[in-house]
């Protein structure tokens, strides 16, 4: 079974997000006055092959996030795991 994983990471609450701040300023200066806040993080798409059980795939993704994909000291992550169509 193959799996498609979509992962989003962003800085934890309370940690300064300079990118978000700059993008917000950029959007405002373009005239988007209604923009209230912006956070910028990472988005990843990963395809994992040949794992039969969803739990196993899920555990693997957790693991990858903790070890490499997110920096647990300052970032939090979310992911979505979907079986891939044949």
């Amino acid at each position: 079974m193959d799996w498609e994983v979509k992962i989003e990471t962003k800085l934890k609450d309370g940690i300064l997000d300079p990118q978000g701040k700059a993008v917000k300023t950029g959007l405002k200066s373009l005239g988007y006055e209604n923009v209230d806040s912006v956070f910028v993080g990472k988005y990843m798409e990963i395809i994992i092959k040949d794992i039969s059980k969803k739990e196993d795939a899920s555990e693997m993704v957790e693991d990858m996030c903790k070890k490499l994909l997110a920096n647990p000291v300052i970032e939090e992550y979310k992911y979505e795991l979907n079986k891939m169509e044949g």
Partner: protein
Amino acid sequence: MAENGWEKEGLTKEEYDKIVDLLKRKPTDTELGIFGVMWSEHCSYKNSKLVLKDLPTEGECVLQGPGENAGIVDIGDNQAISFKIESHNHPSAVEPFQGAATGIGGIIRDIFTMGARPIANLNSLRFGNLNNKRVQYLFKGVVAGISSYGNSIGIPTVGGEIYFDDVYEGNPLVNVMSVGLLDHADIATATARGAGNPVMVVGAATGRDGIKGASFASDELTEESDEDRPAVQVGDPFLEKLLLEASLELIKSGALIGIQDMGAAGLTSSSAEMASRGDSGIEIDIAKVPVREEDMTSYEIMLSESQERMLVVPKKGKENVVKDIFEKWGLHAEVIGKVTDDGMLRILNDGNKVAEISASLLADEAPEYTRETKKPEYLRTIKAVNREKIKSDNFSEDLLKLLSSPTIASKKWVYEQYDHMVMTNTVVGPGSDAAILRIEGKNKAIALTTDCNGKYCYLNPYRGGAIAVCEAARNIVCSGGRPLAITDGLNFGNPMDPEIYWQFKNSVQGIIEACQKLKTPVIGGNVSFYNESPKGAIDPTPIIGMVGLLDSISEQVTMDFKKEGDLIYLVGKNIDELGASQYLKLKIDKVDGIVPQLDLDLEKRVQKTVRSAVKEDVIKSAHDCSEGGLAVTLAESCFENGLGINVDIDEPISDEALLFGESQSRIVVSIAPDDLHKFEEITVSNSVPYMKIGTVQSREYKFNELINLDVGEMKSKWEAAIEVSL
């Protein structure tokens, strides 16, 4: 207040009692938090002050000694250089990228608050064994963090040093030095004066990040340190660049009384220190401080270490000048209080008093401790290494191995990630003994270096400290400069441990002795204690950052051999010693034995000789002997131009010591054959030992009958070593 509230703030019962005694009442929570950070080791230097008192801080060139954000030395033409070194070890151990980045941010603020434009950064790093995965992660992260912040802000990173040794595995060292240029007329100070003058906070809004980072830095790293989240901050180099430009513009405007960056202990220390320096008081209302997060308590606002903020005291009526300048750079400036004449730091929250403490009590009356000292046990057993164990039968192979050991290998992998050319003043960048920067519009230049061999300091703290100063000066001299002054980054373990404190005291003594001899005063520095991990303390690592002056840029010298046929001389003498050398690490995986001798008089004469020869324009290259000894020094001089050597030395010492011993006070120079007599005259008149050791030739590296190698092969091993280990 909770029972034992002082413990939470990192204070002892005795300190708490002293506070009650001084205040003549119990402190509030906010007040106790304020004492906690102000009396932390990081801010108060309570364990080091009495030892540091003896450092020589005066000299002809000194315009500002220790006490301000950074020291200043005169370089003539009414110009001056401000510089300082700062550690960011613990934050980097937990979050290497951001820890190192914010370290750069902090030291740069120290420089521009003096009124100087930062023109160069250096970084001195220590990591564990590069084969270790976690070490690789730390190493890559720290380098990327320095690269990211330094490059973005547009200040060249022109030099530094990196050592790898097991003792730093759990507690890497990240010390960064920043150097700025200013006119005498623009010297600014961090002083609050004149009752009624406004107090303003400028730059970033205050958040909950980094609360109590100062106390974090004053603690040992434990397994739980990863949990110390609030102490980790994210830097914003873009914002800092704006802050830098705006601050320099403000200093030039004449509207300013004083300016101070908010580093450790944020608003608390900046306001208390500014007030205390000016014998004034400061009253601020924290409800007026722009915040990034909701519902922040007064405690949090006072102790936040959010980056890229400054405290500014302009003249009354000039508030708008400040606002306009910062506005132009897209930054906010807010009046949060005023200077008073009662000497108190008074904190209001929307008009209600939450803290009131005498500013000098916070800034100057912190306890001072003389800690117990004890000569370390391990020093009693140190003896000369057993020569039989380290005999070699293949010196060529030894040399190749030394050249590809990470500590000696080229640091190109690192410094190519640093923009070392921006500002277009870099005459000699990383890769030489000292970096050289021209002073724009003038004929002169400055030379910059950082140095320290922690193993020497472990095996002999006193001599190690002195050698660090001498090596720094030697590097400046090899680059054609005259050593001016130093800043010291003193990294040690837990000062409560008498053996550690002994190391500390003795290292500082060594620095003092060498500084006095070489006439290079200490104009500022930093103490970082508690550099320990579960495996134990780091080696004592007192890093010396030095600035030198070249009267004319034409006096610059680089370390690489220039031309086939040039003569190679050694100034100084080879001694039969191998103690503490990298060669031992190679052979027995342990740096042990007796640290190389140091004769300060000889050192001085060696440096004087090379300086005179530079002045007489007879030197074509100069490079001092350091880690790896003479064989490595000669190799490094071959690489840039792909030249070789034919060296023949007849010395009554062992081959191992001749090739790889790390005897001090030695400089290898090359000169044109025509200058032979002129050069020898200079050496003789300085009564310094010297010898002609060989000639520059093409491609082939030949040292006695001991080593015969192709320079191309050596160079590629040396250049690739770090990348290969990653």
